[in-house]
């Protein structure tokens, strides 16, 4: 079989404020499965989006078999046989249409031309052929809304190969899949490889890449690091290449003053993404939960905070067993959560700074008969603005108008006003600028110094290393490692986060 070589040279792309890709080279060919990996923010997805024509403002060149091609729109890429399946499968599917209609969507939308009527026989026959060709046993007449996540992925893969497909890019396809579903996916990938299709695989899970891929390209901070044959490298070596620069003195110096046991979680399970997590925190301690995107950290934080249904397991705080049916109960018991989705869950974007600061502890700002004490509320807000150095014109400003970092300070600040016992932070530095990051780290260490327990969940391993006293590593909904900060390093955390090191 004749192989087609796809090559990207010196690709650079900038977004307001960041250079997401900096002179990146990438080369792969058909009939090969190629792993593309790097830590969060390394630029893997951006690079593949460039290849798929999602951006038009990059610089650099793309070659197919040595011939320069112009890819500036998704159609350009598709016409060249480059197809991509994004992680968010639901955005690409129409739930109330059938499997066949979804697979044949491109054809019905763009290839009908002047024809006004759809040839249903052709649609269903062709969809069945495509599904059969990758040995997926699904009825083409089924509605997509009835399918599981992994089946939806299959539909997207089927759609991609229903047209001329030389290179198929899969962006973190396995993150939400179970083990058997992952195996099924790799079976299809191997099928495609044998038919001389090239597959690029973006994933955080190293073991599966080592089992299934031929080549690997590693990126770091928007730059190309190295391209190797999988057979010539090793998990530890890959981890070394992936690691970013140290954050250095972003983190305040502190001597942890760790007290007695505060929170004990036994075998917490949400029947979905959290599979039996056991951990504990002590007073004055910052406990890091390291894990990659999709490891179940967010779900764990929510389950702990009473936000998930069907939670099993035992939560004990200061010797008292808690029954948390909702966040309302959790807050009453002295827990606080700074959620990952700041604008959606952390702050009230349409309300003022004052309302945001007081919302979690309204009872402190009341007069008789639940009447609001506007004065003390405003004074508290002014005090918090000064204390947290929130950049806002006044306490009456609508939070929507503030920057991400300042919004996050408010999302944290409302729990300082509420004075909780256990503080849970879920990716608190996501989308926060460097200055505000430093302030947030300072806030968190101050909480610990006051004897509070802090749980700090993040996929930024450098941050986990910088701020935690003790670290749990989460992988696939389970705690796979518990380690003291001084006994570990980023490399080891990444190894465990990617499912490695289990046999040791």
């Amino acid at each position, binding site marked *: 079989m004749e192989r087609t070589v796809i090559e990207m040279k010196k690709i650079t792309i900038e977004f307001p404020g960041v250079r997401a890709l900096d002179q990146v080279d990438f080369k792969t060919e058909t009939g090969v499965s190629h792993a593309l990996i790097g830590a969060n923010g390394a630029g893997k997805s951006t690079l593949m989006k460039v290849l798929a024509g999602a951006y038009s403002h990059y610089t650099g060149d793309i070659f197919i078999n040595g011939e320069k091609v112009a890819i500036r729109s998704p159609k350009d890429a598709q016409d060249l046989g480059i197809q991509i399946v994004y992680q968010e499968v639901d955005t690409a599917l129409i739930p109330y249409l059938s499997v066949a209609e979804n697979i044949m969507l491109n054809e019905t939308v763009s290839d009908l031309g002047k024809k006004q009527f759809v040839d249903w026989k052709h649609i269903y026959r062709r969809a069945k052929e495509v599904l059969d060709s990758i040995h997926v046993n699904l009825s083409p007449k089924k509605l997509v809304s009835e399918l599981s996540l992994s089946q939806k992925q299959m539909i997207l893969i089927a759609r991609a190969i229903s047209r001329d497909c030389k290179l198929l890019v899969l962006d973190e396809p396995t993150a939400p899949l179970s083990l058997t579903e992952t195996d099924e996916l790799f079976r299809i990938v191997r099928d495609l490889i044998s038919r001389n299709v090239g597959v690029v695989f973006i994933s955080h899970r190293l073991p599966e890449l080592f089992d299934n891929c031929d080549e690997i390209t590693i990126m770091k901070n928007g730059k190309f690091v190295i391209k190797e044959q999988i057979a010539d490298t090793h998990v530890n070596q890959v981890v070394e290449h992936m690691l970013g620069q140290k954050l250095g003195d972003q983190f305040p110096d502190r001597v942890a003053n760790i007290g007695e046991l505060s929170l004990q979680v036994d075998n917490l399970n949400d029947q979905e993404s959290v599979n039996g997590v056991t951990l504990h925190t002590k007073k004055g301690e910052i406990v890091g939960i390291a894990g990659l995107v999709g490891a179940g950290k967010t779900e764990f934080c929510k389950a702990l905070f009473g936000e998930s249904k069907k939670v099993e397991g035992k939560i004990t705080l200061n010797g008292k067993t808690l029954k948390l049916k*909702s966040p309302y109960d959790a807050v009453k018991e002295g827990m606080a959560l700074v959620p990952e989705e700041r604008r959606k*869950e952390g702050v009230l974007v349409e309300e003022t700074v004052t309302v945001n600061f007081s919302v*979690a502890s*309204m009872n402190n700002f009341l007069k008789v008969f639940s009447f609001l004490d506007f004065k003390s509320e405003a004074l508290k807000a002014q005090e918090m603005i000064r204390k947290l150095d929130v950049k806002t014109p006044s306490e009456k400003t609508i939070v929507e108008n503030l920057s991400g970092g300042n919004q996050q300070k408010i999302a944290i600040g409302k729990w300082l006003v509420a004075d909780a016992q256990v503080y849970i932070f879920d990716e608190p530095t996501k989308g926060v600028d460097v200055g505000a990051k430093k302030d947030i780290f300072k806030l968190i260490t101050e909480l610990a110094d006051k004897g509070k327990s802090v749980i700090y969940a993040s996929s930024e391993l450098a941050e986990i290393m910088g701020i935690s006293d003790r670290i749990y590593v989460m992988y696939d909904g389970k705690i796979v490692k518990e380690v003291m900060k001084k006994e570990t390093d980023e490399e080891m955390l990444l190894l465990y986060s990617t499912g490695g090191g289990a046999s040791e």
Partner: protein
Amino acid sequence: MSKTNTSVAKTEFDFFDFLYRYGTLILIVVLIVFFALMNPNFLSTGNIINILRAISIVTIIAVGITISLSVNGFDLSVGSVASLSNAVVISMFVWYQQPALIAISAGILAALAVGAFNAFMIVKVKIPDLLMTLATMFIIQGVALTYTRGATISQNMIMSDGTYAEGQITPFFATLGQVPWIIIIMAVTVLVVHIFLTYTKHGRYMYVIGGNKEAARLSGIPVNKYKVAAYLLSATFAAIGGMILASRVMTAEINAGGPYLMDAVAAAFIGFAVLGAGKPNAFGTFIGAVLIGILANGLIMMSVPYYAMDIVKGTVLALALALTYYKNK
């Protein structure tokens, strides 16, 4: 040249903001001047009381809708609930010869049952509120009709066994629908709910829930409890409206509360923009009802036929919605 352009753009923007904040009030003043010029009787004390009396039932029902809107819900069943309470309270007097206290309690209880049903289906079964309360609207309309056996309940009506109904509506209940009480009840309702929504913890929670349910829940607010409370309150005010109507006309006619739904919805939505509140509020709702009341009264005085009235009301609602949503764009 470009300078002129920007300054024009700026005034236009300010003008729009001004319109958003004060448009309703200005429109009311303009309408008053216009109707007064067309017919001097428009500003007579008698007519002003007429207008206030005419809007009181709409206002009370609309205040209920306002509460459901404050948690970002919507209650379309209020018209039917008003009909139901209307039928229940009159039947308690006429059929069962009950005292006012029991009759009124029965009217409220019937409404609370509907509110609880709405709340359960919306909060627990998670049916979108607009659709659920639309269903409830039909169900309760039917329940009220079935309860009255499709007939008007009135004093001395002929019962199915051929005798005359012996019960009488008590004089106390009969005064509730008369001036000044009907207007006082409306004023107190508006005032109490305005204070509740603006100055108490519960009102604050409701607006927070209405703005962002997820963030509210994760801040430790018992979101479901407040949503349930909102639907119960909405039904309660619909019941009060329905019973005041009963007191005013002293009968329970078929689907008596139905026509109040659209007026009340319009009043609540017009109220969004009043004084730039940008959210459902009881005072604004009252102003909205005043606007509709003045329009209806003035147009009738100008001999516009009653059957054309909905065209005007609907247009005003569309304008109010346009103002609110254009602003939010």
